[in-house]
């Protein structure tokens, strides 16, 4: 959901490492994920800056859900449940920048203590909870995936969240209330 804008200072050390590999990188090459020591003594890996590609793949679909159901009484709330210490790409600053860049029309909240994610039993991202407001108390109506095709939403033949919310809007029972999908495990604080 976020991109990393980083300038990698090509210090002598980095140049030394690169020159050890058979080829030097050119524009368009995929770089190896290096790990180096930061000035605070901690190891920083380029891999830490990768955010969840499954969530990324669903980004547009999440925005579309907000557009489709926000006005129908089902506003969307996005929560970043990842610990920024474990996943720097999920820092508050990165969230602010992503929300601006993508023009999110919904709240995008940071679950700093991860208590909300824990109490919901969220395990992976993206993980959706559809809540039904019954005179002020919110009942869980659906837990799971957005649809059954992470790769391509237009190829999904089961749109779980839409079907669930449509059922609630029509005062009908939700046929499928729980689903699973391959996702990124939430990065919990150690």
């Amino acid at each position, binding site marked *: 959901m976020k991109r990393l804008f980083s300038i990698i200072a090509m210090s002598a050390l980095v140049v030394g490492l690169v020159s050890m590999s058979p080829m030097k990188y050119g524009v368009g090459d995929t770089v190896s994920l290096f790990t180096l020591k930061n000035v605070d003594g901690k190891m920083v890996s380029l891999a830490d800056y990768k955010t969840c590609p499954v969530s990324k793949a669903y980004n547009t679909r999440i925005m579309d859900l907000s557009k489709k159901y926000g006005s129908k009484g089902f506003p969307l*709330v996005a929560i970043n449940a990842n610990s920024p210490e474990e996943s720097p790409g999920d820092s508050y600053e990165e969230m602010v920048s992503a929300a601006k860049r993508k023009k999110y029309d919904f709240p995008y909240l940071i679950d700093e203590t991860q208590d909300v994610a824990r109490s919901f039993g969220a395990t*992976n991202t993206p993980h959706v909870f559809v809540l039904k407001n019954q005179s002020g108390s919110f009942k869980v109506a659906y837990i799971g995936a957005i649809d*059954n095709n992470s790769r391509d939403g237009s190829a999904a033949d089961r749109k779980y969240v839409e079907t669930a919310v449509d059922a609630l809007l029509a005062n009908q029972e939700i046929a499928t209330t729980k689903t699973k999908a391959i996702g990124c*495990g939430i990065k919990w604080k150690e």
Partner: protein
Amino acid sequence: MRLLVISVAIISFTPGFAQRAEIVKWKGLNNVIESKSGGITVVNFWATWCAPCVKELPLFEKLNAEGREGVSITLVSLDLDLDPNPEKVYKFVERKKLQSKILLLDEKDPNTWIDKVDPRWSGALPATLIINQKTGQRKFVEKELHEGELERLIAELQ
């Protein structure tokens, strides 16, 4: 009424040639899970995009290199869930010179097979399933494993 969305996100050089990852359907994966080997089956679910998965891969590689009798290791890549092109996985396996058996699962509709791997699995990566094929006892872990944990889990099943 309200809708809520929770969203968000080592390199080991061993000599020799890398394994060639084999593309399989559910049946191919199930054959590994239900192998009647009588030994210990370790199945690790990973993807090249999953940083904690990539971090823990050397632990499985190390175990595989030890060649313990009766212990078989299979690394199941779920990259095809997001990207239909297996090339990225082939390159990754080559670059890391992975020696363990590698399967690339090519299945649609994860909701129909995740529970069949283990009902405790949410679908989050990384995940590891360890089965004692003699007793049918299982261990399932849905987190990144650290040094020594894999051996401990196997010992608990033996």
